[in-house]
Structures are given as structure tokens and as C-alpha cells.
């Protein structure tokens, strides 16, 4: 018995992949050609698995702001927000986020993981209850485990099951936190937030929504699924990330509860880490402004999503249940998924390979995410790459 025994399954999978001659979880981007093209593992590819939904990573205004911040404020803050790491720009970004979400309070975190995990681990504690969607992101699971609260799952996007579980809690819903996501990252399916909010109104509890994959995509202002469903008033806390639509790294939580300003000082992932670098804050502030000034980005994004979804569906692939900027192809046979991921790379399309336990079921996924910056021609090239795939083992394109 050794410390390393528990890593044997990972060692075995790596060996298996090496035998097949592919290392999908170590793909190296050698050179970026634009926000949608790069050289990956020696292949020139269209980036179809980056979460760069609005394509802002190479926006000249974002880059200029980041460069200026580096020159004026240096490469890093070298400290926690609670010590020397709060710069005027962190405060400005918090104010701008609060204004964008039309909420009174905002906290900026160093990563999206730190934001989600930090809020999930801090809002509820021993004696409290957390009821979370079964397909929640790892950052949520990590957070709730650290919280010390009683943790109960409800079936994925099943408002009826949530209601049943809240009713079983009775008066304990007074100190219960419900956690769901806006758009789920693996299949791109949106939460039935109107139904979930109705259950919350009926049964009680507080509601936290992770809009990591929906910021800038849905709602009249791009605030996410809660805005699109018309239930923002029922959502107590919104968390999210700067690393997708806003093309940087970092995270946030916004709320109307004044207690958020006190909670801030209880969040370990906020306190015990260095604050975001000046260049990150600078490009994020510009990206947040551009996202509001350019609603056409959202329109391009959804047109691209629809085109890719329709194209892959017409080829006979089992695509996600609904059109969204995440278009995932489900493949039952893991080795088939690995082989196809590799073929797609060689044919010029980089997508994400997702295998259990990261996928929500026992199936594997070839997960695509589209960008507003993709051209129609690039979307068609991704579809063409999928069209060349032939079953290489027992699994067909099911």
C-alpha cells in the first residue's frame, strides 16, 4: 500500500492513450494565429473548444488596456486583496460588475474556480444545508465539501426533484442554499431557472446561480440565464468567470444582499491568494464594456452555434439536447471518441475530449464551443472535419 496506489487508474489510462499514440489531455498550443486559429501539436487548426465565446482574447482595445496596465502598474499585485493587493482598478471593476448586473454588491476573485468554490464553501456552514444540481461543476462540489454543511443532490435540471427535497427539509429551508448553473458546461443545456425560482419562492432557501457559461450570451443585457428567464429577483447570488466571454482569467460574485461585504472577509479563496494582476483587470474591464457595446457579438455567436449544431445533427451525430454555444457530440465507445478526437485534430479542428468521470454520464463527449469570432467558413470546416469521421471500432456515430 503506497500513497501512489490511488493514482493507478490515471496511470493506466495514460498508458492506454500512449499505446494509441494520442495524448488528448496534454495537447500543446504552440502558436496562436488569432482567437480562432492556432498550431496545436504541430497541426494548424480551427479552435473549436476554447470557451472564447465572444472572441475577445485578441481584441485590440483589450490588448492595449492590458499593455498599459503592465507598464503603469507592473506584472502582478504580489498580495491578497486584504493586504497590499487591492488596487483602485479592482474596486472599479467591482463597481462596473455591480452596475452591469444591476446589483448593489460585487466581489472580484483571482479565478472562476476561486469564486465558485469560495462562495459555495463559505455561504453555508455546519448546521446548514446545501441542495445542488447533480451535474454541478467540480468547483461547486469542492466548495460544498469544504463548507461543512449537509449536502444533498437533486436530479439534473429537475425542478420537481428539487421541490421534493426542499419539502423533506421542512423548516430547515430557512438555512438552505440552492446551487445551480446557468448553462451546464459539458452539454451546454440551460437550467430551467423559471421553474427552479418558482420552487424556491414556494419552499424557501437562497439561490446561487453560476453563470460561467452564460455571461454575454443570454438575456436582454447578456446577464445570463436568470435574466433570460425573468427571475433575477429570485437569484440571491450570481457567480461567474472572466475566463470565457471576457477572454481573461478571474471570477466574480454579485448580490443585492449587503451581507456580501462581510462575507467577503470569510472567503478563504479570496483572502489567501494574490489578487488578479493589473493587466487581467484592465482587459476584463474593457471586455465587459465591449460586451455591452457590441450586442452583435451575441448574434454572431448564436448564428454560429445554430449552424454547427444543425451541421453535426444532419451528419447523424448525437448532439446536445438544445442549441447553445456548447455543442457536444456524445459517443458511447471511449476509444472511438479518442480516435475521432485525434482525427479531428489532424483534419484541422481542435475540440475537447471529455471522458467519464468528467462527462455527466458514462459516455464520452467530443465537446465543441463556438465563438462569435468564428467565420461561417470556419464553422463549415469544423463540420467538414466531422463529416470525414468513420467508425474505427465497435461504435458508430450514434
Amino acid at each position, binding site marked *: 500500500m503506497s500513497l501512489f496506489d490511488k493514482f493507478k487508474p490515471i496511470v493506466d489510462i495514460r498508458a492506454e492513450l500512449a499505446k494509441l499514440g494520442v495524448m488528448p489531455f496534454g495537447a500543446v498550443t504552440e502558436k496562436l494565429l488569432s482567437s480562432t486559429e492556432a498550431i496545436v501539436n504541430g497541426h494548424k487548426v480551427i479552435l473549436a473548444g476554447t470557451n472564447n465565446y465572444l472572441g475577445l482574447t485578441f481584441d485590440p482595445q483589450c490588448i492595449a488596456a492590458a499593455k498599459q496596465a503592465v507598464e503603469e502598474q507592473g506584472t502582478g499585485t504580489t498580495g491578497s486583496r486584504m493586504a497590499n493587493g487591492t488596487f483602485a482598478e479592482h474596486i472599479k471593476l467591482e463597481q462596473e460588475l455591480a452596475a452591469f448586473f444591476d446589483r448593489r454588491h460585487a466581489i472580484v476573485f483571482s479565478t472562476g474556480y476561486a469564486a465558485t468554490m469560495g462562495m459555495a464553501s463559505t455561504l453555508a456552514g455546519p448546521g446548514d444545508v446545501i441542495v445542488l444540481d*447533480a451535474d454541478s461543476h467540480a468547483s461547486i462540489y469542492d466548495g*460544498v*465539501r469544504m463548507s461543512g454543511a*449537509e*449536502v*444533498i*443532490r437533486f*436530479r439534473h435540471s429537475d425542478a420537481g426533484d428539487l421541490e421534493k*427535497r426542499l419539502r*423533506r*427539509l421542512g423548516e430547515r429551508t430557512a438555512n438552505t442554499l440552492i446551487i445551480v448553473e446557468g448553462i451546464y458546461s459539458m452539454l451546454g443545456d440551460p437550467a430551467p431557472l423559471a421553474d427552479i425560482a418558482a420552487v424556491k419562492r414556494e419552499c424557501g432557501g437562497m439561490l446561487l446561480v453560476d453563470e460561467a457559461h452564460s455571461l454575454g450570451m443570454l438575456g436582454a443585457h447578456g446577464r445570463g440565464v436568470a435574466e433570460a428567464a425573468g427571475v433575477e429577483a429570485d437569484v440571491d447570488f450570481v457567480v461567474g468567470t472572466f475566463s470565457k466571454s471576457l477572454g481573461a482569467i478571474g471570477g466574480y460574485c454579485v448580490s443585492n444582499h449587503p451581507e456580501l461585504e462581510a462575507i467577503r472577509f470569510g472567503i478563504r479563496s479570496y483572502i489567501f491568494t494574490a489578487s488578479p494582476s493589473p493587466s487581467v483587470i484592465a482587459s476584463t474591464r474593457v471586455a465587459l464594456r465591449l460586451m455591452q457595446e457590441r450586442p452583435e457579438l451575441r448574434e454572431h455567436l448564436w448564428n454560429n452555434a445554430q449552424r454547427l449544431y444543425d451541421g453535426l445533427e444532419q451528419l447523424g451525430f448525437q448532439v446536445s439536447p438544445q442549441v447553445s454555444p456548447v455543442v457536444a457530440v456524445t459517443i458511447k465507445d471511449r476509444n472511438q471518441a479518442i480516435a475521432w478526437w485525434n482525427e479531428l485534430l489532424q483534419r484541422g479542428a481542435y475540440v475537447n475530449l471529455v471522458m*467519464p*468521470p468528467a462527462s455527466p*454520464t*458514462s459516455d464520452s463527449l467530443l465537446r465543441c464551443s463556438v465563438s462569435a469570432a468564428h467565420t461561417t467558413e470556419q464553422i463549415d470546416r469544423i463540420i467538414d472535419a466531422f463529416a470525414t469521421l468513420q467508425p474505427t471500432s465497435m461504435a458508430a456515430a450514434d
Partner: protein
Amino acid sequence: MPDYNDFLSRIYEILKPFAKHGRILNEDSELVTELGLTSLQVMELIEQIEDHFDISVPLNILPDIRTIRDLALQLEKLTN
């Protein structure tokens, strides 16, 4: 309130398909290492128990469960 034996017989019922190659399930059967349940299958087992007995099982009890007996004991503790 269901007792230990109620939980035990329900668990045996749900896990029947995992009793392969003539294996007989008993209280010492280990869910993951012996019966080969994946983490997803463990959660499906829990969901079926929750539906049948109309209870919610907190995830917090899972680290203490290795065998069928562990699970039945934790469920009894939870409901009594």
C-alpha cells in the same frame, strides 16, 4: 420508519444485477472494489433508495461507506 433490515433488503434488490458470476451479495460485499460500481452507479443506487423510502441522503455520509452493511447502517442512522 424503515429499519436496518428494510434498507438491507432494498439494497440487495437494487444491486442484483451486480451479483455476477454466481456471486451472492452479503453485508460485507464492497460496493466499489468488489461489485465494481462506478461513482455514477453509486449515486444511482442512492437515488433509487431515496425514491423508494422518500428520503434525501446527504453526500456527507458517502466517505464512510464501503460495504452494503455500512450503507444500511448509515441509512438507519439517518432516518431514526
